[in-house]
């Protein structure tokens, strides 16, 4: 029961974090030069200063900073993240529209990286100092050192243009208007490359952590105990070491959750994935303050949520956790 109390405690801790993010985001973005009105006016060609001022008034950008801040916080607590004037739509709607693809991409990449990384790390540790270990190490190091967008471009060249196996970009083939199961397959095909481009770095990371962690477990007394019981090496590995060795990987995964969102900005841009990442980039370029604030807030919420899931897994996997 104390484990669940611990989880509740972590849940409680998320509250000030989220509030802090609201505060920080607001001030950080207000520091930036230029505002939504000046961009909007600029993009519409020859706009008069009166027109720009009109826009500014309409957006409430002419009001004093504290007033804007209080308005923002109170609204955010009601999950009203404001209105994106550039997109002519409430921020929350825009983000929610894009959230699905991003979550799909992130969870796929994350799950793939975690599962394969654990497996590869395990294999490398088992085959320590053999050619297999070396091959895995070299492959992971290369994945670790390759910029994500470069990888994405190469994947497109190879798998879409040369081999013609996978669609170049997008979320689904809209022109065909698939429904039901066909649509799921279609989306899955579109998902393959972005998930790889996003996930390979983390795959490499988790492989390395898992390998090191496995090697550390090898020297543990309980492994010797299991051996002394007459347990086979395979069972020792899967029955005993795997779970223990996985815990540091899980910790790393929780820490990396925020970077996963950052990575998705670049990857989504390369693959035209209609997610929060592309939204963030366009919002930043067009200085859509409300939208950016919203994206930061939601991203941070996602990270907090992922961290909570990690905590939950931890609580489930490690009986020692308690408040």
């Amino acid at each position, binding site marked *: 029961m104390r484990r669940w109390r611990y989880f509740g405690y972590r849940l409680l801790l998320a509250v000030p974090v989220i509030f802090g993010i609201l505060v920080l985001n607001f001030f950080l973005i207000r520091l930036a030069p230029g505002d939504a009105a000046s961009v909007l006016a600029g993009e519409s060609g020859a706009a008069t200063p009166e027109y720009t001022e009109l826009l500014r008034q309409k957006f409430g950008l002419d009001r004093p900073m504290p007033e804007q801040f209080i308005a923002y916080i109170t609204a955010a607590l009601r999950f009203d993240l404001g209105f994106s004037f550039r997109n002519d739509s409430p921020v929350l709607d825009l983000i929610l529209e894009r959230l699905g693809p991003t979550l799909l991409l992130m969870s796929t990449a994350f799950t793939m990286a975690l599962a394969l990384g654990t497996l590869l790390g395990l294999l490398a540790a088992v085959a320590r100092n053999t050619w297999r270990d070396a091959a895995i190490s070299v492959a992971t190091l290369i994945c670790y050192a*390759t*910029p994500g967008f*470069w990888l994405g471009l190469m994947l497109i060249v190879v798998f879409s243009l040369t081999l013609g196996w996978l669609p170049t970009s997008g979320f689904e083939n809209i022109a065909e208007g698939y429904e039901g199961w066909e649509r799921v397959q279609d989306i899955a095909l579109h998902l393959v490359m972005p998930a790889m481009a996003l996930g390979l770095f983390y795959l490499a990371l988790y492989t390395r952590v898992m390998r090191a962690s496995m090697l550390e477990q090898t020297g543990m007394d309980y492994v010797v105990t299991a051996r002394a019981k007459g347990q086979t090496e395979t069972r020792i590995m899967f029955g005993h070491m795997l779970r223990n060795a996985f815990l540091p990987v899980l910790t790393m995964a929780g820490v990396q959750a925020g970077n996963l969102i950052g990575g998705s*900005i670049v990857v989504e841009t390369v693959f035209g994935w209609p997610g929060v990442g592309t939204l963030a980039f366009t919002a930043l370029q067009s200085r859509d303050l409300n939208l950016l604030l919203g994206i930061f807030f939601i991203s941070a919420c996602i990270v907090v949520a992922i961290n909570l899931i990690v905590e939950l897994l931890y609580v489930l996997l490690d009986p020692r956790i308690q408040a």
Partner: protein
Amino acid sequence: MPDGLRRFARNRMAVLGAIVIAIIVLVSVLAPFLYPKGAFSLAGQPLQPPSLQFPLGTDALGRDVAAGVAEGARTSLLIGIAAALSAVIFGAMIGGIAGYYRGTVDIVLMRVTEFFQTIPAFLLAMLLVVILSPSLLSVIIAIAAVSWPGIARLVRGEFVALGGREFILASLGLGASGPRIIFRHLLPNCLSAIITVGSLLVATAILLETGLAFLGLGDPNIMSWGLQISAGRVSLRTAWWVCTFPGIAILLTVLSINLVGDGLNEALNPRLRER
């Protein structure tokens, strides 16, 4: 510590990495002499494939890709090292204060650190570069600003672990002051861990810089690999050499730094060495 050096030298991959880094450093130092006109100068016909005259080809404006790679080495290393160093100094300060003084200070500082870890790093870096407007300094600041939490947690963890060790208690018992304990005992003892993680941070910083440059957030007046790639990206499939070579340079650098970092880790922090 010749001991650590010897252990490092035994690790062949790490030595290989160190050699590659040495070559890269050498190239970056020699760049002004090899290419006195600078990497931005228009050296020949645009988009020439690799040849004797231009071993790595020319880019869309007729600039020598080799000159760019050489000058970019300096920029990338400068950004990587400067950002990592700033992150290490700031992170060590925060982590050190939290780990040494513990209590409320620790709780507050670690909450702040966790908080900065929670914010998606790349988004924050992007934002900072835009706010400060793209320049060498702003890129360094942005990268450092998102890299320090890891160091802070590391140093704090080491300080807490070491703080329980009896030699720290012994120093306290001798009447040593806080700064003396921090600078004479705690820092020297976690220096090797900091060096290891710091060296890996350089690699991450270089990757971050590339990502920022990819999105057009680099200093336009300074040649860097990220800039080369983002410029060559449009002709990736007609003139593969323009961004292939800077890409390889990044890969090699980051790879080598990682190898050296791993080597340092094994050489400086062998858990089995003590007891």
